[in-house]
């Protein structure tokens, strides 16, 4: 199967290229660009006139809700949503039920995802059994089953002895550890950023130092163990400052931010809008600005959807009782474009944060437009608006702070391994 994408604006975030051109995909890979592709024979020709042709998005955090939470979403619905949102690779955190702490579960998830033949799925294994923070998982066996990294999702390890040992053990085999920086005791009971808004609304607060205390601990342990650490969902300006200094020092670290957190702050809670109940909490306007800026200057490597489908029964509740999380797979591209425009970045620079940069953290060859790179490509219209309404979302998660908003950026076609897996006029 040879597919030719013609007359598009070819954007390669890895090299910075942003120029018109043609692209030929064959045997699952990018076969040729520009002149070499022009006029090549193909089984299928996609006319991309007026559209952007770019690498498929790579999302380092998307909850597919299988196994265990099929009433919130199924692998099928969420994989449909992923490719509709232009996401061709995604990493799923281990907080399923049961958690991804056994090779059999990981194997099953990969097989199911493969059979659906949409986006590529990279499972993240649990760092400790049942995510309980007490006993290490069989990391070598989980890695053999396909886990690309190890994580605690949203339940940090409280016992620092266990944390230290887990980092040491992972470092022994060169495994990456992906952790959120949150001190569980300091965050205990909190549902919103500890500040003026939470005080006004009478919501229990999660202070910024719940993040920085945990982050300082993690960085100190990395200094000792040399573990490759990826810090998930940075939420504060103070956290950014710690990361900036640690990177300057040359520690083997990277980090991401949830795409909602570069757009929203605690002010958006309004009158207890449970759609804004997220983990970590939306912090102050100042924190939001620091995150958006750090994502642009590279202290934060990439943005993730942190896709979390929540059903109405768990969202239509008083703020503090509502389940945290928002749908994200279909909003990642438009929200990334909105962020890039606000930061006055070019398209290549903008897309780098959701393509080449996460590809580097994941250690995969996708995320670029170059000969012999995987044939994971999207064609999108950066100017086409769409209105975020539940009916427009393929995900079973219909929960979003952006419900009712118009966002620009519509995917027209998504190709994974050279095959069209999504298309819309």
């Amino acid at each position, binding site marked *: 199967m040879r597919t030719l994408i013609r007359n598009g604006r070819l954007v390669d975030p890895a090299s910075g290229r942003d120029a018109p051109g043609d692209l030929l995909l064959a045997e699952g890979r990018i076969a040729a660009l520009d002149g070499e592709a022009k006029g090549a024979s193909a089984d299928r020709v996609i006319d991309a006139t007026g559209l952007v042709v770019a690498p498929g998005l790579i999302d380092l955090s998307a909850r597919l809700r299988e196994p265990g939470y099929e009433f919130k979403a199924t692998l099928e619905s969420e994989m449909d949503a992923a490719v509709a949102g232009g996401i061709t690779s995604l990493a799923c955190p281990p907080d399923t039920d049961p958690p991804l702490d056994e090779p059999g579960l990981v194997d099953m998830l990969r097989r199911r995802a493969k059979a659906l033949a949409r986006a590529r799925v990279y499972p993240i294994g649990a760092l400790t059994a049942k995510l309980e923070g007490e006993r290490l998982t069989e990391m070598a066996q989980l890695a053999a089953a396909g886990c690309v990294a190890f994580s605690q999702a949203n339940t940090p390890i409280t016992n620092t002895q266990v944390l230290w040992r887990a980092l040491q053990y992972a470092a022994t085999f060169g495994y990456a550890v992906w952790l959120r920086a949150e001190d569980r005791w300091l965050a205990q009971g909190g549902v919103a950023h*500890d*500040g*003026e808004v*939470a*005080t*006004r*609304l*009478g*919501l*229990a*607060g999660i*202070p910024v130092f719940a993040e920085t205390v945990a982050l300082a601990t993690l960085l100190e342990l990395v200094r000792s163990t040399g573990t490759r650490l990826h810090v998930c969902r940075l939420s504060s300006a103070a956290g950014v400052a710690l990361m900036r200094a640690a990177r300057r020092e040359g520690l083997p670290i990277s980090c991401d931010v949830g795409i909602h957190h570069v757009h929203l702050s605690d*002010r958006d809670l*309004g*009158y*207890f809008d*449970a759609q804004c109940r997220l983990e970590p909490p939306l912090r102050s306007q100042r924190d939001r600005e620091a995150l958006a800026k750090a994502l642009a200057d590279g202290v934060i490597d990439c943005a993730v959807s942190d896709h979390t489908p929540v059903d109405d*029964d768990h969202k*239509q*509740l*008083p*703020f*503090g*009782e509502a389940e945290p999380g928002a749908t994200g797979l279909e909003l990642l591209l438009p929200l990334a474009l909105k962020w890039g425009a606000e930061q006055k970045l070019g398209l290549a620079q903008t897309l780098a944060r959701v393509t080449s940069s996460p590809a580097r953290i994941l250690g995969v060859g996708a995320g670029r437009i170059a000969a012999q790179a995987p044939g994971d490509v999207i064609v999108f219209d950066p100017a086409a608006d769409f209105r975020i309404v539940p009916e427009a979302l393929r995900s079973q998660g219909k929960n979003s702070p952006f419900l009712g908003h118009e966002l620009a950026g519509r995917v027209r076609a998504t190709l994974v391994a050279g095959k069209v897996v999504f298309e819309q006029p």
Partner: protein
Amino acid sequence: MPPNPQLNANGELQHLLSIEGLPREILIRILDTAESFVGVTEREVKKVPLLRGKSVFNLFFESSTRTRTTFEIAAKRLSADVINLNIAASSQSKGESLLDTVANLSAMQADMFVVRHASSGAPFLIARHVKPHEHVINAGDGRHAHPTQGLLDLYTIRHYKKDFRELTVAVVGDVLHSRVARSLIHGLTTLGVPEVRAIGPQTLMPAGVEALGVRVYHDVREGLRDADVVVMLRLQNERMSGALLPSAQEFFMTYGLTAERLALAKPAAIVMHPGPMNRGVEIDSSVADGPHSVILPQVTFGIAVRMAVMSMVAGH
């Protein structure tokens, strides 16, 4: 910010959810209306027909005796039919969701819901889902607001002190967990009180409380100095010893209102408490029962204030 959900398109009170965001004119109108009802409550026949034929549902997801009773009396004096539901002991324990409970009661032709809930914001969620002719009154939600208590506190202060614009009001104790404090602070700042003080240890002060327009004092003696009004907050039993405070005795020693401390306030200062009081924890009995105390009149005024709020949201 989205539009204030308490006001209808004409800027009139549709629900009472929080004092925050209510314009000064509406607060004054509530207090004036309450004043007219104080006369009613002192008559031999204590009823007016303003809510005749209306059904008021007391929806208490968290137990309360005093507030529920005063709402009930207020509704009955307005000639409404009152239905008390102790939800804590019924459908919630069977797993019915908050909105399902409300939808069911709405199907029973409710006109007004008086809601108390342990979660901040619950009455806002209900108000977003009720029919246009149904009204919601917040009778206390989590740590967020207790607007009728705040209003009766304002009423009491106005009754004894007349002009808000020259007062120093000290609020003492567990501000962190207090919906009473939040509602009162918003009311006082809206009505132009120049100095509102919050007094308590750091462990009981919420982050950024200064942004509400208060001055924080950790030293009770300094905070009480020259105050015109002293409002003591209730300290919940479960918070008296643990990580927030070491003991009730130590709290009384450091922040409790004694006659000696009260002497630092203005000679004509009044002492208030939302009840129920912990004698010997927040307040010494000699002060609670002493000449400065207006704690019992607060309760009486509370009925008139609740009558005023109910009649106003129902459109009278």
